[in-house]
């Protein structure tokens, strides 16, 4: 088994928000994972956008997703495509699915787990990765 540990992703990307996405990042900074749910038809969507794709309503509730989350897919990045990220290798961009929240998915990272333990379909546990420039990213372990 590959027992190298998945590292946190390279930092440096500024988290820019607008009126529709700010509640997600504000909650993340408090280490709370909140997803937008249509205030009319009650369906989750990610990422947050100004209209519900099912009923076109604009109102949102910000809700903590219930239930387990699972690893939907992932990639292990082992080479630096851009210079300056060598110290972050290997890192594991991943997609995590929340079946109890209409199956919405988060583009995220697996962090702190041995590479050999990472597999599609595995339940994952939420952690928070604080950014040096402020704010935090939701990340997961298997």
């Amino acid at each position: 088994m590959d027992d190298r540990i998945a590292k946190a992703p390279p930092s440096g990307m500024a988290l820019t928000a607008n009126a529709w996405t700010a509640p997600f990042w504000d909650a993340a900074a408090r280490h709370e994972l909140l997803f937008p749910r249509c205030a009319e038809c009650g369906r989750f969507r990610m990422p947050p956008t100004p209209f519900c794709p099912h009923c076109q309503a604009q109102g949102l509730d910000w809700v903590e997703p219930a239930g387990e989350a699972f690893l939907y897919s992932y990639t292990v990045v082992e080479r630096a495509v851009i210079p300056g990220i060598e110290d972050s290798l290997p890192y594991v961009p991943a997609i995590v699915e929340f079946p109890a929240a209409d199956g919405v998915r988060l583009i995220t990272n697996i962090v702190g787990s041995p590479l050999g333990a990472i597999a599609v379909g595995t339940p994952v546990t939420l952690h928070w990765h604080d950014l040096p420039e402020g704010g935090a990213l939701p990340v997961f372990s298997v």
Partner: protein
Amino acid sequence: MTAERTIRDRTAIVGVGATPYYKRGRSSPQTLDEMVGKAILAALDDAGLKPADVDGFAYFAGGFDTPMLTEMLGIPEIRFTATLTGTGGGSAGAVGLAAAAIVSGQADVVVVVGGNQMDALRFGAITASYPATPENAFFGATGLVGPGHMFALLARRHMALYGTTRDHFAEVALAIRENAVTNPRAVMHGRPLTREDYFAAPMIADPHCLYDFCLETDGAIAVIVTTAERARDLRQKPVSVLACAHGGARDWGRSIYWMNMPDAVFASSGHGIVAQRLYEQAGIGPQDVDGAQIYDHFSSQVILQLEDYGFCPRGEGGPFVGSGAIRRDGALPINTDGGQLSCGYVWGMTHVREAVEQLRGTAINQLPDPEVMLVTGGPSVLPVSGLLLRKS
């Protein structure tokens, strides 16, 4: 009458021109405009036309500066200049944009041109070059730096759902390399690739290793589209635009930047709905296609497109390529010039060029008398596109 609402066989590609394919950065001191100009002039010469005959431009992926091109090349009047939205997904579709302009009477001789020069910007890290926005905050912070990382997520899901393996990806890379080895235009001309080489290559974004990634190339390619009638009087044997479709489903949408596609669509190329419309428009099916130029930015995505275009059922793309089907002597020879993986990457335009040359009978790795060739553009964000060309 539905016949009046189709572009089927009403236009033709009458000229093709290209610069050499340079390894990234080796095209200097030529400028990108200069390479685009050279490709256009070569395509016009091939057709027996002059700059004064051109009255339209149809682009994709941001396009080029039409006023600059008219000034530079001495094109007296432009009656149509338009660009498909999106990125490389529009490469095949830009020919349909030209056909739409011609069939609707807006222009007579339309240039479709693509080109890239990666002096400053490596496409492999293109995503990291985009400015921070509220939209890319949801994927950029995860270290998904380039498309190769993002498509690896689709490839991994396909492996998990259907049992596709790295052996299948290797077969795509090897089959396409074999075509480049005998093509003097190809960056990988004379450089065979073995399975041992493939599996010894550095892993870049698991499951994508070095040879699953396309080349980074400088170059430009132009084709000239005109009416079927005018095509008959020109220098080359015309290649008929049988059908062309672009677009895609909401369920695909921003795809690699969204990653919330429904499960059935996620591990696909996003081409399914476009492929269906393309075949309907053409009045043919996948069994009528003699060869295909499949957009191969990543080997895994070739397999997903073969499924979406109906050459095998969903999930069976791995075994399909494993059977030898995509080799030059197989049931569906693909990327006969060596593709973007091993010949050159010019935003998909190499595929249009190769399909035209196959149908003219002048290709370097000529197939035995093909009648119909498929060209695809994308997978990428919507639009993705497909083009069917046929021998006149």
